[in-house]
């Protein structure tokens, strides 16, 4: 194994300050009760909260350089925001806009990206990347949207995250000149909201019929930009999953300290204590692994392995942690009124997002030379 730079796996003071601001906002605006009340209404996303987060706190522009109107921070800070969003399953289009669409345009470069990125960074514009949420890094360039002779686009992309609230769609499409990434105004597409398994994260089908489009980047650079977006999102998703794990552990510990059965707090029974100690052990592993992926993405080293390890390891930890939280809450954990189900739905759909753990293991095996 070659020499790797020494990663920074801790949180900086700036990152802790950012975390505190985001957590304050989410505690105030995205309480579990408010979320539960919201998910079945006609406005399942809280776009006011999204504006505050994206524009006032500047969370949407963390990865965008200052000359493009962003904060010139990095994936590390973005990861901290995602940890907090995972801890609260906040109903905002951060993943689709600030992570996927933004990192695709950042990697693409060029004048169209330079025009759009400042607006995304400022929270004026919400974006989405028109690929299925399940698309893994390293997947073949999608062939479901074609470029017509007049430069318009036709075709479809299914289960696109955050498309239903996006004004801008970044669309991978294939034309006579090969692959390209295109910018399409969402009003030019037909976006059909789907019933999402994850109640706090929306997915939609995107239909394009001779939709007007602007070319952002073409050829191998388009493929690289798409892969960069998927890799960044997969790596940073581990931080959201760490946030979910942390929620599951702390909520369950609090509950078991206060719940009395057989004359004492249930949290005093050793069989339950040991399960929580195991969740803590998992959380320690998840946090270090997710931090490494964020640091690798920020520093541009060891990225493919760091991301594959993160998704192979942290995704199942998050699912298991929330499943344990539900079991250890007993009957109340199974109800609609308790927020645990929102976290389970997020954790399970996160496990499918950007490639399943099995798929990441297969990719990792090739990367680290463990041949079949």
């Amino acid at each position, binding site marked *: *194994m070659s020499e790797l730079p020494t990663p920074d*796996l801790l949180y900086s003071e700036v990152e802790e300050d950012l975390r505190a601001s985001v957590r304050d906002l989410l505690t105030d605006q995205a309480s579990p009760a408010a979320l539960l009340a919201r998910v079945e209404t006609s406005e399942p996303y809280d776009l006011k909260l999204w504006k505050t987060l994206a524009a006032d706190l500047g969370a949407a522009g963390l990865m965008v350089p200052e000359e493009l109107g962003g904060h010139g921070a990095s994936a590390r800070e973005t990861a901290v925001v995602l940890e907090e969003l995972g801890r609260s399953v906040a109903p905002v289009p951060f993943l689709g806009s600030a992570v996927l669409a933004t990192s695709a345009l950042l990697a693409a470069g060029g004048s169209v990206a330079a025009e759009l990125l400042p607006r995304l960074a400022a929270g004026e514009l919400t974006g989405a990347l028109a690929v299925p949420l399940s698309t893994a890094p390293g997947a073949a360039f999608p062939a479901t949207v074609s470029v017509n002779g007049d430069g318009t686009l036709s075709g479809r992309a299914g289960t696109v995250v955050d498309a239903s609230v996006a004004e801008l769609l970044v669309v991978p499409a294939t034309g006579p000149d090969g692959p390209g990434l295109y910018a399409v105004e969402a009003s030019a597409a037909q976006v059909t909201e789907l019933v999402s398994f994850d109640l706090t994260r929306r997915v939609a089908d995107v239909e394009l019929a001779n939709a007007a489009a602007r070319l952002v980047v073409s050829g191998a650079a388009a493929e690289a930009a798409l892969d960069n977006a998927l890799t960044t999102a997969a790596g940073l998703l581990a931080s959201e999953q760490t946030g979910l794990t942390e929620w599951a552990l702390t909520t369950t510990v609090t509950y078991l300290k206060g719940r009395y059965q057989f004359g004492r*707090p249930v949290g005093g029974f050793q069989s339950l204590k040991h399960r929580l*100690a195991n969740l803590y052990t998992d959380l320690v592993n998840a946090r270090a692994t997710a931090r490494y992926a964020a640091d690798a993405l920020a520093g541009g080293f060891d990225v493919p392995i760091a991301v594959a*390890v993160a998704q*192979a*390891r942290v995704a199942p930890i998050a699912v298991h942690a929330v499943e344990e939280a539900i079991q250890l809450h007993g009957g109340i954990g199974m109800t609609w009124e308790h927020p645990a189900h929102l976290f389970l739905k997020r954790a399970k759909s996160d496990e499918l997002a950007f490639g399943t753990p099995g798929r990441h293991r297969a990719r990792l095996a090739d990367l680290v030379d463990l041949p079949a």
Partner: protein
Amino acid sequence: MTPDDLQAQVAGFLAAHDPKTTDRLEFLRARYDAGLAWVHFPEGLGGQGAPRALQPVVEAAFAAAGAPDNDPRRIGIGLGMAAPTILAFGTDEQRTRYLRPLWTGEEVWCQLFSEPGAGSDLAALATRAVRDGDDWVVTGQKVWTSSAHTARWGILVTRTDPDVPKHQGMTYFLCDMTAPGVEVRPLRQITGEAEFNEVFLTGVRIPDTQRLGAVGEGWKVAQTTLMNERVAIGGNALPREGGLIGMVSKTWRERPELRTPELRDRLVQHWVEAESLRLAASRLRQQLTAGAPGPEGSAMKVAFSELNQKLTGLEIELLGEEGLRYDDWTPRRPEKVDFLGREAGYRYLRAKGNSIEGGTSEILRNIISERVLGLPSEPRVDKDVAWKDLPR
């Protein structure tokens, strides 16, 4: 004190003591006297009161020069447990007498804590020490004592007052392993080796000058030892694929005939866990260096034990026919545990001890849940009962 200062000191030391021409022991003694043994120890005791985080700088500089080390794995108990306890509770005479030969490896130490009836419940121990003039007379039995057969000294916890509750009434001693009445018997284990020992103490006279800490304060002193044990288990910085996972991955690459899809997926799962654990260990070290020690240490040990056990089990399966053989059942008396120096069967069997030694995984999970997560502690039926009245 900066890394550069220390590197300059090491360079100066090496200029005065060429490792190629200097006798090993002479070199180590000089290194101790120069305050370059454990830099965070006080001056005159092998250190210079520098931050503990700078020790790796010194180790790296000596290693790069090809200098002899003090074989830290052979004397790990002395370095990791006896030394910090003697430093914390010893008199000036004790510190001066014991720390130098401990660090140079001239005197090996063992830990006389566990007993047949007091393993995880260490405070239940029954080995008696009775005052007799300037001496104490000690009688009892200890078990799982690694290095007892090579040790010159042992750190020993005894019961000096059976009439008070078990955590009181204990006293801590430094035991001369060559004293009359100390008998070390090999304890053969599932590996076939006798890595551990039983130690029988029969009327052993220990001068009161070899007592560490106050009479009746043995539990407090022992806590310092145990806390340092858990820090020591945090381990060294490993590169990616360091240790067992590297060994199994190498076999996988070199032996295509052994591969099956099912084994591959399990191997990759373990690879991922090993990498994740390596990162968690680095993060823990970074927290310690930044002065914010986290409670992750116990969790790391639980996770390491489980991974080692799964991985060594996989290795035997992977080897197929060869996994049916064992390298050698001859009872040996190794000076240190060497996981990588023997074959797969040995590793599988030895790994069974990982979740028992240094605190069982069950006890560590109690520690995590109570001290980290703040869950209620186990009901304590023995708290206010005199030790002599406890059922056993």
